[in-house]
């Protein structure tokens, strides 16, 4: 089955660890890191990158606009 594939890049130092992206991701890609950034926040990262479809949900709700989203133009076949 063909599947949309995407990826996000989080500006780790500007992330405030609010977790809003985590709860809106339909495929549970994102987690907050155990470690903290320079400001002391547990920043968001892709824990399950293969599950990202590039839907942009996380970026739409990120108050600090620190998420950039990429999506492949063609879905890839799963195997």
């Amino acid at each position, binding site marked *: 089955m063909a599947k949309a594939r995407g990826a996000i890049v989080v500006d780790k130092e500007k992330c405030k660890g*609010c*977790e*809003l992206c985590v709860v*809106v991701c339909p495929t549970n890609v994102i987690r907050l890191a155990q470690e903290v950034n320079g400001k002391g926040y547990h920043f968001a990262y892709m824990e399950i990158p293969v599950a990202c479809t590039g839907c*942009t949900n996380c970026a*739409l*709700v990120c*108050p600090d606009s620190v998420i*950039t989203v*990429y999506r492949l133009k063609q879905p890839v076949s799963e195997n």
Partner: protein
Amino acid sequence: MNIEDIIKPENLVFKKTGLLTEKPLSYCPGCGHGVAHRLVMEVIEEMGIEEKTIGIAPVGCSVLAYEFMNIDMQQAAHGRAPAVATGVKRVLPDHFVFTYQGDGDLAAIGTAETIHACNRGENITIIFINNGIYGMTGGQMAPTTLPGMRSSTSPYGRDVASMGHPLKMTELVAHLPGTCYVARHAVHTPANVTKTKKSIRKAFEYQRDKKGLSFVEIVSNCNSGWKMTPVDSNQWMEENMFPFYPLGVIKDIDAKTK
């Protein structure tokens, strides 16, 4: 498939608008002000009006909005943004002018300025962030605080008998003949973000077409003032704020009547 094969310029589908500066926002983690800022800037960028738009910043947590919005801005005294916007617009009628105001700013100290600008039908746009509280000064009760809602000055909850009823500014200004477009939205879910952006776009288009004052309320969280996590505050907002402040377009003078 490697991540590096996906993260390429040709696959880019979302990035922060260049009309937001690189300065980290001064807002608390999870605060809705950030998304609201971004949507206004995205609309201005998409309409290509950044060179002729002037924003009026309020007093409140968003007092520094001019640091984050990469367009011409003027900061106004507490509550006076609609009056300042009126002056700017009348001097520069070919420019787009908007105010960005919290509920303490717009619905308490600035009530008169808000109502009269709306009633005069000034050709400006008001973006109203309603978090039901005075965020900046430590979570005091605002005119918008819900009945029973706790704040630092209503620690046992707002008692309507002694503290009065919450003020629905948006419904109020919708009744005034000077307003052309009045809507209430939220920015905590992707679907709401999309709807809010559409309304902000419409508000600026109506200003372009000189239809009168356009007014978009965004019901938002103040997780610090409400003393909740960002995720919990958004859920509390859905359960408590939305029943009292229902979302949707309240007035649209151009709406097609069936």
